[in-house]
């Protein structure tokens, strides 16, 4: 029994590749080669070197003493916020840009919501001198001006997605349409563990460096590789997949996924997919997603743009359905409060996405000697305006 993807890209009932035939050659090219390419020694060497010298890995595993004391348990923070560009997203874009080069692609496309993945993609394209086009919802472009400017400074073209609700879901649709129209020279760098097989597995593998390091670091600090719990926020779920990866098949490690409840699960303004979603197809993957009875995909809501996605990666859908993962949802208000609290207790300003994971301790109690590792997936710089408005700072 494993919680990893099988060779058809299924996690239990979820996953697969529900793509139009126009995408088949691109996706098949990637599917048939990704594992082999990733395992080549030259690939591994280049990937590890860039993670070390360019991204700044390994990121610290930090024992948060004052935060731990407040909640009466041992809390470690995996400091992905210290990665270059400010979040874990760059682990995946480094991996995929190397993959694109080996596949002979010279044009890169990506989707972005808040702009974090767009910035991480524009960054690696600048690094490798490749053309970069980022699709971003027209509404998000207005909301996230600093990240739009960053992408432009890095040489990327930002194209507004004008269709549908003009947010992340539609930016993803536009990126997929671009790939249909440019099937030969283009690689699509998806930013999360979503999309058709092999993306969820490939992105999880690139992000798995998070749990690989955590195991070594925890052994040094606690004398054991396995914590009692790993905790991460889940939108599409790439930072969570990275932290869970090497613990998926270790049953003594509890897996906790934290989703965005927005203004409350029953408010009609929420992004808690496990609670509100049903099985269906989104962006080429069979997974849980928020939709109408008629099967139209609906628009989620969260104060955090990074969790504002109507689906969830198929790995997480399977963790939910199988009961392997414990799913908790946290409101805007509780997340914002937790973000402010961590800032004051530890001197670390977290991203609002990450703040959701930090907010569970008010209600989810742990034993005093439990070791809980939280993925501190991103820093809060990008969210400063939201914090300023919310707390009237």
């Amino acid at each position, binding site marked *: 029994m494993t919680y990893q993807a099988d060779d058809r890209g299924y996690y239990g009932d979820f996953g697969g590749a529900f793509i139009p035939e*126009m995408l088949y050659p691109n996706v098949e090219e990637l599917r048939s080669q990704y594992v082999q390419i990733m395992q080549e020694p030259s690939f591994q060497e280049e990937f590890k070197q860039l993670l070390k010298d360019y991204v700044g890995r390994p990121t610290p595993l930090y024992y948060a003493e004052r935060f731990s004391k407040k909640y009466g348990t041992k809390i470690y923070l995996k400091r992905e916020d210290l990665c270059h560009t400010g979040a874990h997203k760059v682990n995946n874009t480094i991996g995929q840009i190397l993959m694109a080069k080996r596949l002979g692609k010279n044009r890169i496309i990506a989707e972005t919501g808040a702009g974090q993945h767009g910035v991480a993609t524009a960054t690696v394209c600048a690094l490798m001198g490749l053309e970069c086009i980022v699709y971003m919802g027209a509404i998000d472009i207005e909301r996230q001006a600093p990240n739009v400017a960053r992408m432009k400074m890095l040489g990327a073209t930002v194209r507004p997605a004008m269709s549908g609700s003009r947010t992340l879901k539609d930016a993803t649709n536009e990126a997929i349409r671009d790939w249909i129209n440019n099937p030969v020279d283009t690689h699509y760098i998806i930013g999360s563990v979503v999309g058709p097989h092999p993306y969820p597995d490939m992105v999880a593998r690139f992000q798995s460096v998070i749990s690989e390091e955590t195991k070594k670091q925890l052994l040094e600090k606690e004398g054991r590789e396995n914590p009692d719990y790993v905790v991460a926020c889940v939108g599409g779920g790439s930072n969570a997949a990275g932290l869970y990866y090497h613990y998926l098949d270790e049953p003594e490690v509890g897996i906790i996924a934290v989703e965005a409840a927005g203004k409350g699960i029953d408010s009609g303004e929420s992004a808690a997919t496990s609670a509100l979603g049903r099985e269906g197809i989104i962006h080429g993957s069979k997974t849980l997603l928020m939709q109408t009875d008629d099967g139209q995909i609906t628009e989620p809501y969260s104060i955090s743009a990074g969790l504002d996605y109507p689906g969830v990666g198929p790995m997480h859908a399977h963790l939910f359905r199988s009961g392997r993962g414990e799913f908790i949802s946290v409101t805007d208000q509780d997340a914002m409060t937790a973000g402010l609290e961590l800032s004051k207790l530890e001197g670390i300003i977290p991203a609002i996405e990450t703040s959701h994971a930090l907010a569970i301790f008010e209600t989810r109690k742990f034993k005093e000697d439990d070791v809980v590792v939280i993925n501190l997936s991103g820093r809060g710089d990008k969210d400063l305006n939201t914090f300023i408005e919310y707390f009237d700072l």
Partner: protein
Amino acid sequence: MNRIQQKLQEDKKLLSLYFTAGYPAINDTLSILTQLQDNGVDMVEIGLPFSDPLADGPTIQASSTAALNNGMTTTLLFEQLKDVRKTIHIPLILMGYFNPMLQYGVEQFCAKCQEIGIDGIIMPDLPLAEYETDYKAIFEKYGLINVFLITPQTSDDRIRQIDAASDGFIYMVSSASTTGNISGFGNTQSDYFKRIARMNLKNPQVVGFGIKDAQTFAAATEYQKGAIIGSAFIKHITENGAESVAEFIKKIR
């Protein structure tokens, strides 16, 4: 024999039209179908609108969004079509995306299609492998022909697999593109049309994407059995109204 198979045996080039159900107005479905039949159209793809139509360009996206805003649903479309076979005798194909079909229930959806007299299904995001493993038996039980797409990038091996799995026609996408995104046909298309014709597939092919007038229709049907027009037709009824079908068909043949 299914109406699609019968139609494919006729000794003529087939003209097939796509329109989005519920567009421009929610109750235009039957009127558009009647006009298409009266003007000699051979076959129709009725589009079931979806919120996230990945394979479609701006024209069909906009018509889908408008149709959904008008209140179109799977249930309502089936209701509108319940007596369609009293007046419409040409082959009818439902075309859409897989999620709404999955939510309706694949078996219930297929049963309803048979009850109404739908002859075939085109679900671009239901791929060959998933279809054969999980859904083929259900489609066949209700006498529905599933139509697969191929593109200029589809390998010969895969075209052979798709040909083997098909029992009606193959939908040949004219170029690597979303719908409504091509201005005309060049040598690339003509080479592709010839290459596929030379493969001697057991299923006839019908070309779609990029057909908009008499010239492109003639080019698309030089080597293939027929052609499908979608975006150009939607554009026409957007500009000229849902009662202007005859005017459009006259420009094609």
